[in-house]
């Protein structure tokens, strides 16, 4: 019971962190049709900026200003590069962001070095929030969840109840009409791109110290968030929310389970030895295959539900 509950909480906090990243990606994709390949790089940039700011002014200013700076960088990228490439089509835009991820990685390494930086959890958020049976649940994980949920709520309110949100939604389906009504659609796109990048930056601020802030951090999550948005359904915010939680919980449980088919067979009296045919597969533990589970899920979803869990359109 203890294991089930604490792993569920850990899975939820990881899933919500994934959602912070994938929500920005989904927003950008559904508004502009651009798959931002450099999205995880903006996450990395957020973590490094937060490290730089927090070592000077503390964690709380970093929580506010790092995402804003990342958002600003995103807007500049959209305004001065993506918009130029737009005339060559979406694939070119994708390729551009792909090249951008290379360059951002090099620039981050150039600025902060090739090894991990000591970006630590602030003292006020260190320690245990509560003890479940005998396991401590850290305050910081709860804080991460709170940030993610606050963000989810604010996006929802922003998109449904504010004027700019309504214009964004209208620009999504009828960009020409919105433009004809006198709104500056390119500027709306710039804001959306910057906003999406800022969300990734926010994820970097709270995720960078929960995990490790290193140049490889973009590559570690980069592929997973693409899996999330395909599994959730391209362009569906709710879908990416559920897919994030699903993948977060799935991976967290799998990492903790040290069982293999061989141990299962051992329970019913069949002893597996290295000479048994298929030993490599039988002896594989769930924990060591946790890494590939998101991708297996991706393939299964594509075979049985090609438009994703909550997607509306076929890709």
């Amino acid at each position: 019971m203890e294991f089930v509950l604490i792993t569920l909480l850990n899975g939820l906090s990881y899933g919500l962190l994934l959602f912070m990243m994938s929500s920005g990606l989904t927003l950008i994709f559904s508004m502009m049709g651009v798959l931002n390949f450099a999205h995880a790089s903006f996450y990395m940039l957020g973590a490094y900026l937060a490290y730089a700011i927090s070592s000077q002014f503390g964690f709380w200013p970093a929580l506010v200003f790092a995402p804003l700076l990342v958002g600003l960088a995103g807007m500049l990228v959209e305004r001065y590069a993506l918009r130029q490439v737009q005339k060559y089509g979406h694939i070119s835009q994708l390729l551009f962001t792909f090249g951008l991820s290379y360059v951002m990685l090099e620039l981050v390494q150039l600025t902060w070095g090739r090894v991990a930086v000591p970006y630590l959890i602030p003292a006020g958020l260190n320690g245990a929030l509560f003890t479940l049976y005998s396991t401590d649940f850290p305050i910081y994980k709860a804080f991460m969840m709170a940030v993610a949920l606050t963000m989810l709520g604010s996006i929802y309110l922003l998109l449904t109840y504010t004027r700019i949100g309504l214009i964004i939604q209208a620009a999504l389906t009828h960009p020409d009409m919105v433009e004809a009504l006198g709104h500056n659609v390119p500027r709306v796109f710039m804001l959306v791109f910057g906003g999406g990048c800022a969300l990734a930056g926010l994820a970097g601020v709270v995720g960078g110290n929960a995990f490790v802030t290193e140049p490889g951090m973009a590559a570690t999550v980069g592929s997973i968030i693409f899996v999330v948005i395909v599994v959730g359904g391209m362009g569906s915010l709710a879908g990416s929310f559920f897919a994030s939680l699903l993948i977060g919980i799935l991976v967290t449980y799998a990492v903790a389970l040290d069982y293999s088919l061989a141990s299962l067979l051992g329970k019913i009296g069949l002893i597996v030895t290295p000479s048994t045919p298929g030993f490599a597969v039988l002896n594989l533990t769930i924990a060591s295959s946790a890494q590939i589970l998101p991708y297996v899920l991706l393939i299964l979803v594509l075979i049985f539900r090609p438009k994703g869990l909550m997607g509306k359109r076929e890709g």
Partner: protein
Amino acid sequence: MKKMNNNGQILTWVAYALALALAPLVFYKGASLSILSQMGIMIIFALSYNMLLGQGGMLSFGHAVYAGLGAFFAIHAMNLATDHVITLPVSLIPLVGGCAGMLFGILFGYVTTKKSGTTFAMITLGICELVHSSSLMFPEFFGGEGGITTNRVIGAPFHGLTFGPQIQVYYLIAFWLLICTVAMYACTKTPLGKIMNAVRDNPERAEFIGYNTQRVRYLTLIISAFFAGVAGALSAINYEIVSAENVSLTLSANVLLFTFIGGSGYFFGPVIGAVVGVLLTTVLSGYTQAWQLYLGLFFILSVMYLPGGLASSIMQNLQLLRHRQFAMVWRLQSVVVALAVLALAGFAGLTEMLYHRNFEADSGPAMKLFYLNVDIATAMPWIISGLILLSALAGIHLLKPAMHARRIAAASAIEDAQKKEYA
């Protein structure tokens, strides 16, 4: 574009074969033979990739999967042949790789080709990560972190060929390169090749004339996976080692970068891209540690300003030459190119000094920059490099409208000439 006549085509192929045969006689110094071998492998790989990207319009981030798995099967076949379990000459090992690649193309392609466009791109990315992670989970077959090694000298020499010396391996690669290039070119002329283009340009219309677009994409991927597998097997012969690196996202990304830089719109684009790409990665990485930054920026700039790749700008200039309009643009064009080289020099100067300052601080502020001794603790080299970069960029910016106007004038002159021809 005007269709090339038959004689011209044969001449092109003969020249291609001669270039492959004579290359090691011209570039024989130092590591150039191994670089040539690497180029040959990369050309096959990039051409097979371009069947997807250029001819089929499918952007894949997982092409290394087919080459890598082909390489693993090839290296196991070589080890089995060494142990006399099977009898197979080294020269036919690429077929093993090709068949393995094709097999996995049939398997994975069934899932990936259900989609096209952006979703296809992401699924291929997922498959690549899946195979890469799995390869570390099964060390018996994939050799874990260290990979699988082999010895390419198998059995008795065949007419003196042992494939031990690098030159023999180069000619083996060149032989397969020629065969694969001809085969892939022939593919573009088949009905499948034509319908591939149709599916790329307008999938909806292709469906209306009765083709199953998913099936066309699937077949394309299978054929392309075969040639990728051949390239993988050749790399297994060349390096005598295959590891998880061979199925990684890095390799998949490299082939995409090279193909795009070369130009996916032309059949020979990837050939140029592979040659330039291998030069950039192997030669440049020997000179500077900032090579990934240069490669990334080069790629970004070609996406922004040269969307057709190097091949398309070569073809544009060739067309101007053929219609005797080259005189209109060449002076301005050479000035722009010279300014671009100057801008690159300024940028490279700044970058190199920055890298030296941040990563090699131990060796002191003195460094060698383009055969010049500079002291990066002083402001002078930074100011000069910065000025060169800025003034070159400003020059390009000023010349841009004029360049554009000349190009349009030349294009319309060609159009007029063609109209007269038809009239």
